[in-house]
């Protein structure tokens, strides 16, 4: 005899044992999204078939797979171990960008690792990653900052010695990348991320400038031109109130240069400078959507795709929850569980965003065991941060497509990590845009190359 749940679970959505389906307007005249938030299940349904979808074959179809979907989400959210580290080889930076998340005194007067210290640190990290990664899997090590090229000698020594044991990347402001450095990094297959905030100097130099107020627009563009055919290049634009009205021009500019992967990241409000430069949500959303539309127009017109990776990651998270590459738009976020950050002192933080906050120091690479740091109170505060514990995220249909990023800025803005993103409305609209992309069958135009090869289909309504 079937029990009550077996008998009734699939008859109707939203009553009894049936699934809780949220119906989401996605800005299309004929189509809505039906979402089961816990499992990140979705279906795009014609409005004239919505009744059928809520009391017909859709709940039945979902019920047959819901346990698998939920297990997959649990594995993604709670079952991963770190496979990457962000590594600040120096506290110093030659620039003084208005929105930096690191304290000014650290960037002006901080310490820089020696080659010996850096290689010692990499050896310790490697020993840890060997204990958690499958045999043969290389951890990722991203040199970050401050400006990692300030520690050029140490960083290059580490890359030279360990290039066969880590996937290396470097996020740099490009101002110290001379031809010799470019040749070294590209010959070692190092992923390179550059930063540029506008298609013209007078805007780009407002936020990205040195301690004397001088910008480096021309120099950064020159480096982008040198690296544009390098497959492991991406360029980040931090979107602020100063440049938000120019990001569609930015898309044109990057596309004209031949850049293939960009990010249009809303400024993190982790420090006062970032908070003061935050664009309004409606302005951010309107301009971001125009920029995404522009990438599609350019793709149609030229056949040349340019991926906006932060949006592509939202889209990937909808299509393949475990196929996302970036772990900000899922809760718990990746900080402290998929990756962690190492400061130039060796201090360990859940993410680089926390390096300026001593209360989030979970230990020291040179003194403590990494697993101990990963289970320290400050790490657990971040790795335990779930959308289900946040108002209004707990009842939000897209909570597993957004993740309420980022705990560092949320803590600064709201005084607690259990609060929604300052860019909540922006994330809502990105999810709606992602569903429109799917409804229009345009996924390939927005996802990075190789996405299909990295993933496999496990379900399709047919």
């Amino acid at each position, binding site marked *: 005899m079937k029990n009550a749940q077996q008998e009734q679970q699939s008859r109707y959505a939203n009553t009894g044992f049936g699934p809780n389906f949220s119906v989401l307007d996605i800005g299309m005249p004929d189509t809505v999204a039906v979402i089961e938030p816990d499992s990140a299940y979705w*279906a795009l349904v014609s409005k004239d078939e919505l009744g059928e979808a809520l009391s017909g074959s859709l709940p039945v*179809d979902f019920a047959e797979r819901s346990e698998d979907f939920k297990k997959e989400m649990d594995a993604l959210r709670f079952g991963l171990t770190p496979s990457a580290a*962000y590594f600040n080889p120096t506290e110093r930076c030659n620039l003084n960008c208005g929105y930096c998340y690191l304290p000014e005194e650290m960037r002006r007067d901080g310490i820089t690792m020696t080659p010996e210290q850096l290689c010692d640190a990499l050896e310790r990290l490697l020993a840890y990653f060997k204990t958690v990664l499958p045999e043969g899997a290389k951890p990722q090590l991203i040199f970050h900052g401050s400006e990692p090229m300030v520690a050029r000698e140490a960083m290059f020594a580490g890359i030279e010695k360990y290039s066969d044991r880590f996937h290396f990347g470097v996020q740099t402001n490009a101002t110290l990348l001379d031809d010799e450095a470019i040749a070294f990094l590209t010959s070692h*297959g190092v992923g390179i991320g550059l930063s540029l905030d506008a298609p013209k100097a007078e805007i780009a130099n407002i936020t990205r400038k040195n301690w004397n107020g001088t910008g480096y627009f021309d120099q950064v563009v020159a480096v982008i031109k040198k690296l544009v055919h390098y497959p492991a290049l*991406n360029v980040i634009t931090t979107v602020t109130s100063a440049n938000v009205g120019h990001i569609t021009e930015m898309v044109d500019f990057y596309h004209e240069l031949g850049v293939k992967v960009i990010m249009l990241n809303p400024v993190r409000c982790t420090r006062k400078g970032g908070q003061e430069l935050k664009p309004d949500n409606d302005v951010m959303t309107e301009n971001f959507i125009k920029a995404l539309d522009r990438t599609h127009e350019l793709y149609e017109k030229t056949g040349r795709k340019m991926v906006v990776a932060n949006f592509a990651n939202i889209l990937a998270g909808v299509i393949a929850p475990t196929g996302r590459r970036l772990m900000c738009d899922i809760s718990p976020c990746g900080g402290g569980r998929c990756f962690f950050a190492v400061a130039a002192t060796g201090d360990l933080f859940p993410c680089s965003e926390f390096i300026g906050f001593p209360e989030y120091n979970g230990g020291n690479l040179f003194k403590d065991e990494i697993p101990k740091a990963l289970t320290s109170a400050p790490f657990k505060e971040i790795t335990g941060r779930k959308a289900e514990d946040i108002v209004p995220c707990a009842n939000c249909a897209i909570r597993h497509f957004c993740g309420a990023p980022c705990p560092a800025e949320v803590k600064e803005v709201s005084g607690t990590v259990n609060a929604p993103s300052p860019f909540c409305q922006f994330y809502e609209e990105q999810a709606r845009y992602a569903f429109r992309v799917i409804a229009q069958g345009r996924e390939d135009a927005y996802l990075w190359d190789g996405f299909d090869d990295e*993933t496999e289909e496990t379900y399709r309504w047919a």
Partner: protein
Amino acid sequence: MKKSAKKVISYRRRCLQLGQNTGLSHYILLAPKADSSK
């Protein structure tokens, strides 16, 4: 059970290498297949 709703799009994919090299933060994206430059 016969699927009566015709105009529905729903599908799902999964990562083939979950946990091996996934999981980066918002401001970094190593372009796919960085090693192809070698």
